[in-house]
Every structure is written in C-alpha cells, then in structure tokens.
C-alpha cells in the first residue's frame, strides 16, 4: 500500500526527515509516536503533498506508483486523506458545499459520476448518525469558529464521507475529551477493512486502546528509530524518550 524508502526532506532549507523508511501494508494500522519536533507532521505533509516540503532524496510509492510527483488533489482522489493537526478555518465556504465539491472532484478524477444532491444528503446524515454528531456544525463555514475538539471531529467526519484508502491522522486525538476520542476511534474503526490502512500520529497510548495498531514506530531525529507491536506504546508511555539518544545515537530532542 505505502512504501517509504530512505526519505530525506527539508523545510525552509532545514533537513527534517533524514532517511526515513516505513512500509504499511493493506488493512494495517500503524502508530507513529515520537518527541515534539521530530518530524511527524513533516512526514504527514510530505505524503499529502504540501508545498514547501522538499524531498531531497528517497522514494515513496503508494499503490505501486510514485507518490511524490502527484499533485495534492490527485493523491486525495487516489485515496490519501490527511487529518490535519491544525485544521484550517475557511470563512465564506459552507462545510457541506466544500464536502460536496471535494467528493465530486474525487469522483470525477476516478471517472465516476457526480453524486446527486439526495444521495449526498443521505450520506451526510448517515455518517453524522454514525459519529453521533448533530448537523449544526455542517451548516457553518469550514471549521470557522469551531472549538479545537469540534475541528478534530470534523476531520473525522470528512474522512468518513471521502472514504480514503490511506488515512494519515496527525494528532487527531490531541485535546479531545473522552467522548470526542470515541468519535475519532469509531470513525477509524468504521473504515477498517482489508483495503483501508492508516498511519496514526499520536502522543498518547490511550488512543491506541481504541484503535488497535498493528505496528508502533518511534520517529526521532527524522528517522524511525524503533518499531514494535502495540506493547511498545505502553513502554513509551512508561519510560518516555530519554533512552533514544543512548540506544540509537539520535538526539531525542531533535
């Protein structure tokens, strides 16, 4: 599904990813943990195709094709979804309009017909129900004036509507109350299937109680320095990242 090999990337002239390799198979969920500033969001942004993130060497293949030469919208239409660490407020663009434009653009890209207004509304109410969300937020402009938790829930809601094959969740659990955490994990679990993979960036093992990962990785200093099963998350929670420097020769604070 996703294969990252020896990826080096710079932001504003500074190398952030320094030889990162990671492979995610179909149907798998991988968790990425690691200290602040270690490059987790950078990785997510590089995969989603954000401008200003320059890949200097290495490769990323997605569904057997080179991902890095695709525009962000192509990647989205091919099934990549990034749940932003900081979702963007867009005044003047109603949420539902935005979602319908997005869904239809993706469908056009895939050679499918545009969704009818009725089917779209049915889809919306079905997914709202699934996440126990009320429709008040959807009538407003994209994320405008949403609370931190509402923005994160809205990311998950969008994910359910767009049905990606590879979801990149960047700290979608940060700042959430218990109920919202449930919304996020229900959302991901609803998509779980042999065709759906996810990379879940988190600082807290509690999310992983709800979304059980197949693999847990530690990203530090722009590289994966350790990988393991879900028990690695528990260990990290107990022991922190102090060990990284000693064990792998990487500065844990970078």
């Amino acid at each position: 599904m996703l294969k990252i090999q020896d990826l080096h990337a710079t932001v504003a002239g500074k190398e952030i990813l320094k030889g990162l390799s990671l492979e995610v198979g179909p149907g798998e969920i991988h968790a990425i943990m690691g200290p602040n500033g270690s490059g987790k969001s950078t990785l997510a942004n590089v995969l989603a195709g954000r401008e200003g993130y320059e890949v200097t060497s290495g490769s990323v293949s997605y569904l057997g094709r080179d991902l890095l030469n695709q525009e962000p919208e192509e990647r989205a239409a091919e099934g990549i979804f990034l749940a932003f660490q900081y979702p963007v407020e867009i005044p003047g663009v109603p949420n539902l309009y935005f979602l319908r434009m997005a869904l239809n653009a993706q469908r056009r890209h895939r050679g499918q017909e545009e969704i009818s207004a009725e089917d779209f509304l049915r889809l919306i109410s079905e997914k709202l129900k699934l996440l126990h969300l009320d429709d008040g937020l959807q009538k407003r402009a994209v994320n405008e004036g949403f609370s931190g938790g509402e923005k994160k829930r809205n990311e998950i809601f969008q994910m359910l509507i767009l049905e990606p094959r590879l979801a990149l969740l960047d700290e979608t659990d940060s700042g959430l109350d218990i109920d919202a955490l449930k919304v996020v994990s229900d959302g991901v679990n609803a998509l779980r299937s042999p065709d759906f993979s996810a990379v879940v960036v988190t600082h807290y093992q509690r999310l992983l109680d709800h979304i059980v990962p197949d693999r847990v990785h530690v990203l530090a200093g722009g590289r994966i320095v350790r990988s393991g099963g879900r028990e690695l998350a528990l260990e990290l929670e107990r022991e922190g990242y102090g060990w990284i420097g000693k064990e792998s020769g990487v500065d844990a604070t970078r």
Partner: protein
Amino acid sequence: MSQARTLAEWLEHPPARDGLLSTEARHEVARLATLLGLPGPRDEAWRYTRLSGLEQEALELGVEAPLPDEHQLRALTPEGVTLDRLVVVNGRPVPSLCQIGPLPDGVGIGSLSAMRQAAREGNSSAAQLLEHLDLLSQSRQRAFSAINSALAEDAAALWVPDGVQLPRPLLVLSLVLPQAGPLLSQPRLLAVLGQHSQATVLEAHGGFGDKAYLCNAVSEFHVQAHARLEHVRVQRDSVAGRRVSGAFFQVMAGAQARTHTYTLGGRTVRNEIRMELVEPGASGEINGLGLLKGETHLDNHTHVAHLAPDCQSHQGFRTILAERSQGIFTGRIQVAKDAQHTDAVQQCASMVLSPEARAVARPQLEILADDVKCTHGSTVGSLDANSLFYLRSRGIPGDLARRILIHAFCSTQLGRVRASEMVNPLDRLITRTLADHA
C-alpha cells in the same frame, strides 16, 4: 449626424435644445463646468486616477444611437428575478424597450422628459419630482456632475409616493454603445422615495465594443423619512471603457439607504459615492466589490457625512486584484459637531492575486463630535496558502480551489444585500466573472 468634439468644445457649445435641463440652464452649468475644469494632478482626491488625454480627445455624444440587440440586453440583465425595466442607451431612456408591470397608484417610473411633460399637464407628483433634480450632485463643485448636467439629454426617473412599496425591483439598464468614434455618455438617474416608502433599484451599466468611451454617470437618491432604499449597481465596462460615476444619497429621519457597487471591468473606473445622513436615526450603508484583472484601474471614493445625532453607517469594500490591475479605496467619514452617538464603521479588504497588481486603502476621518463610535480597518492579503492546501488535500483541483476561496472572499459582500431576490442573480454574476480570474 454624429459630431466629434473635445469636451471643452462641447461645454462651450452644448446642444442648443432642452435636455436634462433647459437650453439656458445647460449653457449656464456648462460655463460652470468649464470654470471648474477637469481634475488635475494637483487634485488630492484624484491623485491616483488620470484620465490622461481626455482634454484632447474628440468625443461624440452618441445621442442617435442604434437600439441594443437582445444579446446586449441579456448580458446585463440578472437572471431569475422579475423586474420592471428601464433601458437607457448612451444616457437616453428608450421608451420602446421599457417593460413596466402594474404599479401601485402614484408610482412614477420613466424618463425625466416624460415626467416633465406630465408636470406640464398638471401631474403634481411629477412636478415635485422635478424639484429634486440636481440638488445632491454637487454640480457647483464637482466638475463631472456639472458636465453631466450640461450635456445629459434626459434621465431615468423614479418617484415612489409616501407609504408605497415598489412591488418589484426596478432595473435601470444603462448601455454604452459607441458608434463611429470615442463616445461621451451621460446617464443620469433621479429617484425620490417618499416617507415610509420602500424600493429596490438595480442599476446595470455596461459598455460594448472595442471603441473607447467615457461614461460619466450621475445618480441622485432622496430617501425621505422612514423610507428604505436598497440600491445595487453593477458596472461591466469594456476593456476600452472609462467610467466616472457619482452616486449621491440624502437620507432623512429614521430612513435607511443601502448601496452596493460591483465593478466588474473597464479600463479606468472611478466611483464616487456620497451619503448624507441628514436627520436623527438615519442609517446608511455603502458596500463595494471589485473584480479586477488586466489593466483595470478602480478608484473608489466614499464620503459618509453624519450631520445629525443617532445615525449609523457602515462601509465595506472588497476587491480582488489579478494581473496588472489596481484598486484604490479612499473612504471618508465625516461627523459633524452635533452628530452625537454616531456609529460609523468602515472596512476595506483587498485580495491581491498577482505581484503586479496594487491595492491602496486610505481612510479619512473627520470627527468633530465627542460621543461617537467610529472604527475603520483595512487589509491587503493574498490567497491563503493553508486554505488552498486544505481544499486540495480533499481532492479539489488547484484552479477550482482558488476560485472557491476567491468567491468566499466576495461572498461576505453578497451577504450584505438585503433584497433577497437579488442575492442569487448577483452570485451567479460573480461566479461567471470569476471563472476567468483564478
């Protein structure tokens, strides 16, 4: 029999017949216009806008213009809304193209010359309407108003009696149709809304062809006590078109005037909008939207005069600037000494899409009262990269995403239009215009 003369020559020899004004009166105001002279480089209010070469240019008045074709009429007509329609070609109302449905008693819609005829025949409201002509346009100080008064042949006119609500918006379709050579067009509009009356007026201005022209438009609105006016003006000039417009509003006790000017093209456009809040409790709103590209130069000048206590005003201008366009906004708020409890707001925001485009905002406050609330702010920005990436990351192609964001920037202006039947047609117009902006 079209003649081309310079503006100075036209003012020296205005047509020797009754026009907007009587033959003698137009000669007198023409002399005044000559004395006032065209605004020059030393004129602070005209610092950013040059009508270079205008003095030397030979211009036709285009009075015997051909009738516009269906396509031209349709291009300026908002879709999906029932309207009464006045058609004006090169400044002169064309009765055969007007379409007016049944109206409440006493409402007058038509040409000023027809009103003058009615007044002669004893129609008292027509006579009252005529008394309002040229009271607001400042033709003693403002050269372009004097020129319009001297050279305009006729005007579109609206009279709404006390307590009457216009059943449908009035569309004044004003076309500039240059013929052989460069044209000088002088459309004029006079509207009087009686006490407790209500009206929505849409002025749709447009120029056609590739010939140069100067359209010098003047509109005057008397909004009497407790009346409500919603005025929308859409200006779609050709790339060779220059427009100088003056819109003047007088708002009396408890009345409300709201005006929206959408500038969607032209070579050089200068809009002057002046609103006087004359009696307590009057409120006024001046909004504007500019969708500029190519070489378009737009210069918006507003002046809100708070002359009485307890009045409110709001000014909101937004401009999209692509390619090499320029957008200048000068917004003046004047609060007279006894205009206590004034509440005045002014906002100007520009979105610059190209490094060669330029946006300038100049607020000018002149506050003589002490108990007032007066705020102003201006921003100049570009398309937000984070928003753009957010949309694209959801699968929306870059050019569509840009259009969505630009449209969103404009949509706050649409939100200020209270005449709800106008919102969708205006939105379609903006969407169509933006289709070749992003």
